[in-house]
């Protein structure tokens, strides 16, 4: 099923869909626990899954992505640096460290996981393991 049939209102359709799935228990808090940063969205594309996290101002070198079994760990530090002499008028950006682990309710192929960092977002491509894919069974 195509979720976005009309490209003209892709924006509002997606935003409504995002709000709807906020209540989903897909990534229920598990024993892996840890922090809550960065915020993540999970999408399905065909058989595979994509996690997109917002990590503005975090350099690739400060991001640590680990995959073990069905658990994904995102850790790192975010720094906000200004010269000493500057006087601050407004300060809303936060700096600090983060460590988050999430356990997926599907089996993924750990060797096929790809991570891509672009424009302050981190995309994780998670291919579903072959043995976890649904199989059609011919009715004899």
């Amino acid at each position, binding site marked *: *099923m*195509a*979720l*976005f049939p009309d*490209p*003209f*209102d*892709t*924006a*509002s359709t*997606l*935003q409504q*869909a*995002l*709000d*709807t*799935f*906020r209540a*989903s228990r*897909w990534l229920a808090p598990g024993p892996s626990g840890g*922090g*809550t*940063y*960065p*915020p*993540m*969205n*999970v*999408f*399905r*594309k065909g058989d595979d*899954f994509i996690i997109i996290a*917002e*990590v*503005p*101002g*975090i350099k690739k070198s400060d991001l640590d992505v680990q995959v073990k079994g069905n658990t994904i760990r995102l850790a790192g*530090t*975010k*720094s*906000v640096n*200004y*010269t000493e*002499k*500057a*006087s*601050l*008028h*407004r300060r*809303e*950006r*936060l*700096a*600090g*460290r*983060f460590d988050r682990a999430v356990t997926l309710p599907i089996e993924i192929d750990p060797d096929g996981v790809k991570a891509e*960092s672009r*424009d*302050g*977002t981190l995309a994780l491509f998670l291919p579903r393991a072959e043995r976890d894919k649904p199989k059609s069974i011919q009715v004899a």
Partner: protein
Amino acid sequence: MADPQELAVREKKELVGKEEKTVPGRYYMPYTDIHETDDALTVVMEMPGVEKKDVIIALENDVLRVDGQIDFKKYEGMEPVYTEYNVGHYTRSFTLSNKIEQERIEAQLEDGVLTLTLPKTKEAQPRRISIG
């Protein structure tokens, strides 16, 4: 800096503007830092997901307006199963108190963070007067 703090998640602030938009899509307020040195004002905004070509910066009547558009085409064919944040365009404007040299404004976008350097005009810079 002291011992680094654990980062907390903050809900994005949706923008409630005076004017309504004619295009579909929601707007959010980018988190912004503003600091000033003797010769320039620096504005730093967080706009994750915005590409260089989709940033519009305008300065008119001392009002600095920054727009960052999200390309929703990237999300085509993707079905959300779990979400923690909403995706939308970013916009924010500031009234500048100092006189700015408009021609020398510089903008840089790196890792979703937009840094604007607004050089002050000569008249606006503090001048040290020595007593003869």
